[in-house]
């Protein structure tokens, strides 16, 4: 395929999130473990950016660093050009675990609470909560407590809560991994529909190649031990006629990048870099 000339850098919009040579190391009692080594990438507004890699590739660690829970050992993480120093409501994380909802608040209360904490009036917060609950199909459950919901419903509430806060970037750490396959499939489609409706920026961690190609617009592939970037791939827009075939070939390519032992750069990337 005729490769188009790489676009001049100056034409690209300012990145929303920019990681520069980020290295993250943990000190255990006996040694210093490198979880992430020299990873750099940029997320643009409206991206559905995927961090894809097997366990041990540091993708969750990266996400936590971006959220502000872990300071990088070296390198910088900047959101809108400002270095990330601590957690904050401009980067809301949706976790894999179902216990991220406050058990002592109702479904609506779980969304209203952080909005109120961040300065919204009670009326505005309630209205926003009800709007998002309707979008994720849980309007009827607004007055339930989290323990009365199924796992998929809890994740929907967590997503609704995250979106209600209108973060600059929505961080998701394998949010559907603990769901059964059918619920997971429905949640993935719902997430894409929400993205269509609301147009947020998504940074999504997964170890599933299929999930990456289904949800992502761009995929960063990470290799394990320590986590290093293997490359970034574009995903053809979903919904097109030939999307199934092109997705399958993309998945085969990713599979090759992740599991072929060759440390040589992938041929597709030889022209660039």
């Amino acid at each position, binding site marked *: 395929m005729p490769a188009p000339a790489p676009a001049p850098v100056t034409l690209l919009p300012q990145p929303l999130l920019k990681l520069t040579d980020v290295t993250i190391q943990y000190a255990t009692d006996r040694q210093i473990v490198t979880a992430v080594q020299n990873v750099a990438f940029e997320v643009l507004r409206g991206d559905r950016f995927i961090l894809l890699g097997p366990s041990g590739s540091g993708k969750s660690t990266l996400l936590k660093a971006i959220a502000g829970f872990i300071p990088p050992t070296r390198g910088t993480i900047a959101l809108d050009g400002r270095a990330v120093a601590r*957690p*904050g409501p401009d980067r809301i994380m949706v*976790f894999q675990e179902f216990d991220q909802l406050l*058990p*002592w608040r109702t479904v609506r209360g779980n969304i209203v*609470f952080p909005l109120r*904490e961040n300065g919204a009036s009670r009326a505005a917060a309630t209205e926003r909560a009800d709007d998002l609950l309707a979008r994720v199909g849980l309007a009827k459950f607004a007055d339930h407590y989290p323990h009365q919901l199924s796992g998929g419903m809890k994740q929907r509430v967590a997503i609704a809560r995250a979106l209600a*806060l209108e973060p600059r970037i929505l961080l998701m750490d394998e949010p559907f991994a603990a769901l059964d396959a059918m619920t997971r499939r429905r949640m993935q489609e719902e997430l894409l529909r929400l993205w269509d409706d609301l147009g947020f920026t998504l940074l999504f961690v997964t170890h599933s190649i299929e999930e990456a190609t289904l949800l992502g617009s761009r995929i960063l592939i990470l290799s394990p031990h320590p986590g290093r970037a293997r490359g970034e791939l574009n995903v053809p827009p979903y919904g097109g006629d030939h999307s199934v075939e092109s997705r399958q070939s993309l998945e085969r390519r990713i599979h090759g990048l992740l599991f072929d032992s060759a440390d040589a750069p992938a041929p597709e990337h030889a022209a660039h870099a």
Partner: protein
Amino acid sequence: MPEQILRQHPLERPEYLRALEPSLPDIRLPVQSSRWHRLTGIAPVRQITLLLLLTAAWQIYGSMLDNPLILPSFAQTATAFWHGIVEGELLLRAWTSIELLLVGYAIAVVLSVALTLLAVSSRLGADLLTLLTSMFNPLPAIALLPLALLWFGLGEKSLLFVLVHSVTWPLALNTYAGFRGVGETLRMTGHSFGLRGLRFAFAILIPAAFPSILTGLKIGWAFAWRTLIAAELVFGVSSGSGGLGWYIYENRNQLETANVFAGLLMVILIGLAVESLIFRAVERATVRRWGMYK
């Protein structure tokens, strides 16, 4: 026909599709409706039955023994209790004790919350709490009484001192254990909302640790009663009218054993009331409602 398919391809079975049959209506199961079944299904009914049996045994043994100095029967105790209530003395004594108890309890709650907040916010605070609880928790409050007398003299202040001591450590220990048991996900969620410091403690840590805190409050309540009654037995006379412990002690000296029993009954009844009315209500409104208790 089937044999032909089998020969062509032994494993391939024909596909089929069919319309869904209409679903069966939900059927209401008949409720177990014998009166006996329903009654024995209620825990309080079973407990009250047991209580009545024990009381009957007491009454029978007491009348057989026929020695009210050693063991007054239930009827004699009930009479003494009734008189104590009607004449007001028992109620007055109970109120004296409860008043003191509430003040001490409140001070201890504030103190232990402050200590645990200090413990979760700094390493030194955590060391301090661990050290203090392991030193003072095993120390019986009564053992501090002579010291309290020396410092605060005979009176309410001394009682308050031992009371606060007996409640603070178990409560702080439970609260701290509860705080440490709060899951990482919930903590990160709270921090993501921008909560820090005291806001974080009150909005996330305290409700999330509430089952442990509630256990601490219950244990603390029991310890407070024990300590107070025991301390009053020793020197309650000087603190104005004296509380329930002093009532018990006084009546023992006058060999009014039925009154001693009435005083003990009062302690038990207050304990039962607090457990079944106050703590149960708090539980229903919080941890049960939130699905934290199974």
